[in-house]
């Protein structure tokens, strides 16, 4: 990440930080108007906060955003010994996975899936229909027959998707 980008993000961070205490609280995030109309807004806000905390400092802020850095060519060829970069494919996926997995048991259960579905769906689709969507989704992904989607299964269903592209933002180059 270049210097100018960090500076830019830092200024954004401070502008979001209404309490001016060097950390962001949930309220700070919720003040972003566009986020209020984003169906997954709350989930994404949650993703910024480490477990059990309700403050995030700039480092943590950056750490979460780093998930969305595009993968660069030179990084691909880098040796596999070092720690996996946050913007690797599996970390990107894991970020998305955690949005579903509320109870952190590394499984997306039917209820969890249903909740997310309900968020993304308008009121026009009945619970019943939604349920069948959820069932179908799980059935499609489920390999070990536990009626839930594990992370491995999650990765497997999305193996054909260009996650690197679809979970990256150019700004965070």
């Amino acid at each position: 990440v270049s210097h100018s980008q960090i500076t830019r993000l830092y200024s954004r961070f401070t502008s979001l930080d209404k309490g001016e205490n060097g950390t962001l609280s949930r309220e700070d995030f919720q003040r972003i108007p566009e986020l209020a109309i984003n169906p997954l807004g709350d989930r994404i806000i949650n993703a910024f906060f480490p477990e059990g905390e309700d403050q995030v400092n700039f480092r943590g802020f950056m750490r979460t955003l780093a998930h969305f850095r595009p993968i660069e060519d030179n990084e691909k060829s880098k040796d596999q010994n070092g720690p996996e970069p946050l913007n690797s494919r599996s970390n990107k996926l894991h970020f998305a996975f955690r949005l579903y997995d509320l109870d952190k048991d590394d499984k997306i259960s039917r209820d969890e899936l249903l909740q997310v579905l309900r968020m993304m769906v308008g009121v026009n689709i009945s619970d019943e229909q939604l349920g069948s969507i959820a069932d179908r989704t799980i059935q499609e992904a489920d390999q070990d027959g536990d009626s839930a989607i594990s992370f491995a299964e999650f990765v497997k269903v999305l193996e054909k998707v260009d996650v690197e592209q679809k979970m990256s933002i150019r700004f965070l180059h």
Partner: protein
Amino acid sequence: PAASPGPAAPAGAELLRWQWREVQAPCLVAAWILVASLAKIVFHLSRKVTSIVPESCLLILLGLGLGGIVLAVAKKAEYQLEPNMFFLFLLPPIVLDSGYFMPSRLFFDNIGAILTYAVVGTLWNSFATGTALWGLHQAGLMDPGVEAGLMDFLLFGSLISAVDPVAVLAVFEEVHVNETLFIIVFGESLLNDAVTVVLYKVFNSFVELGPAHIHATDYVKGVASFFLVSLGGTAVGLLFAFLLALITRFTKRVRIIEPLFVFLLAYVAYLAAEMVSLSAILAVTFCGICCKKYVEANISQKSRTTVKYTMKTLASSSETIIFMFLGISAVDTSKWTWDTALVLGTLFFILLFRAVGVVLQTYVLNRFRLIPLDRIDQVVMSYGGLRGAVAFALVILLDREKVKAKDYFVATTIVVVFFTVIVQGLTIKPLVTWLKVKRSDHHKPTLNEELHEHAFDHILAAVEDIVGHHGYHYWRDKWEQFDKKYLSQVLMRKSAYRLRDEIWDVYYKLNIRDAISFVDQGGHVLSAAKLALPSMPSRTSMSESSVTNLLRESGSGACLDLQVIDTVRSRRDKEDAAMHHVLRGSLYKPRRRYKASYSRHFISPDKQERQDKEIFRQNMKRRLETFKSTKHNVCSSKSKARLKEKGRKKASAPQAPALFLALRFGLPQDGAPNGKTHRNVPWQDAAPVLVMVSSEEEESDSSETEKEDDEGIVFVARATDEVLQGKTTPELCKLPLTVSPSASPGSLDVCPSPCIIPPSPTLAEKELPWKGDQADLAVYVSSETTKIVPVDMQKAWNQSISSLESIASPPGIESGPQHRRFACPVLEEQPQSASQAMPEQSSCFQFPSHVSKSSRSQSDSSPDGPEQQELQPLMATEEQGRVPPTVEPRWLMFNRPSHL
């Protein structure tokens, strides 16, 4: 007596009159189209040829041949590719087709790159080529006959440098490169029209004015006209897209003319843009891209199909004619003059500058692109810059008085077009293979992918918001909000709008998904049944995947031709494909049945469509439920299976129903081929024979079909059979599963689901060749039998007794097909039990056969039979009434042992 008109009485009335002159023009047009279409058929007779040589090449060669013949016969070249005809009639369908079926998300995702290549790239190409050729001319390398100044060469450069949408489409559709690459090259070829038109017009006017009279203001005008032409063309397109969407909102009562509006307004958009000399191609392209969402939501399913196929037909025939006439036109030697230096120079320069332009622009673009275009992409993009009929038409349009070197230019253009289409078209496929360019894989999106990608979009938009960066996702999000709030409100019907939800995509796909699962499940269950087979539990996973693969493969194989037609397949199309090819099984036939009424009126289908969907959904749900429970039960039944199989021959009460059930669905398989009369016979013959034999018979029967019919579904059956070690019959394998009266009482609503499947096969018996039925049934047999597993026997048994009385005692009162369906099993079960227990069940035998016959005749003869059959798909509503039939056989079976 009435005067018989003879040759001697010219004044009298004529019986026949030669009216060639009156019909000449349309007749010729029709004849050419016919010739071209027939030629296409001939080309495709040989798979080998068309897989190597692109169709466009073949058509050009054919045109050359035909042109030669015409030239030899008529002694003068006729039937040229007239620019007017080309621009007014041949080009619009192709552009509309490509605009309408453009994957808009992909297009707008890459709009930056596309615009850059289209505008900057084309400008660069024309100026560089023009100047370089002029340099060549100045250096004295060209024939002195080429009288041309800088302006002439720039003019030539402008028309020769534009990548041609028709040629690109024709070649790239067959190459199947990855979507991004395709959309960039193809989008460029569409959008560069504005640049080409402007450059062409500006230079043309400059040439006509003469270099001496050009003022500085003219250059400014030229630049201004570029913006005017491109933005104006786009605006016209958007305006008509809006109109079109608005109009289709109000066509509820006149469904039949919906497709007409689509074509008419798009064409009017083209003409309107052409009229005020704006970019007509841009107008139609944007009209197509933008109206699609709303139009598709508004018009009926049938209209969608009509629009789709008419568009494809028109575009394809236009393309055919264009290429053929290109070939024919080239024969006319009187029009062109050859100059080696010019031709070779042009060829060299367009290739060189295209490559240079692509590399330079990509270098710049990659700094902004999320996913950079790598070197291989750049090679394909450079090489894929095909020139085509647009260049040819433009060069023909030149005025010989003003452009002295027109003949040279015509010759060069023809050579360039032929070179790019034939040589590059021929070699691009091997090149793509050799470079290992990422191909597009036509896998169908899974619900998971759809869902999660949707989530990704939201996540990215949210992150962009958090970062405060107004990037692409921000604008996309904003646009979607706007669209939802205003545009869709205005342009979509209330009903359509309501359905059109954010997740509508996902939801709609669920239907497709389920359509596939219809068959897929068959595959899964089959393998699940295998899992239950004690002999080979280990193979399950393998066969499961292979079965699914087989399904997928054969599914796509069936859709192959469809995919060729549309590289850009919309969701609807996919559904169509899925419906038609994958869903042979149960949905297809009811649909066919509807068709009679479809064609009669245009209002009724709506209801039926809705019914279709509704049932489908309900079926799916139930199926899901059953499938889930089956899945759970598989393990438990596995162990039991072994026991049961051993004890099979004893024909204990619970086993018999299972067997019977298995065969019950097997019977239609047998009976279908030779009709009703035959149906009963084999089973009576087989009566004394052991179960094994009869089922083997069946199996051999089914395997026969498999050989003949290699649709996916059949394969499934076959695959399982193979895995099942040949002679173990499918029924037997499934038997254990069926028998195990699963401990978990999978409540009765599970029951109806098995019923839902069989009716269509039975219905189908009359409609389709037996092969298809068998194939379908092969799957269903298994899926059903397994599905029955969760049924609580006791419960079912109790229910069945009560329900039996109502249903079975007055035979044939209920809908025909239903009865027929369960009647057959009854019939067939006879031999089963007889063979197993004793052959003295004749008393029992009479009853069911009678039932079956009466119900059968009822269904066949009674006037309301068909009606009820049409109701069949509605079964979901009658599910309760349906429970008994499934269970009935059991009752009979239970009875029998007690008999004994």
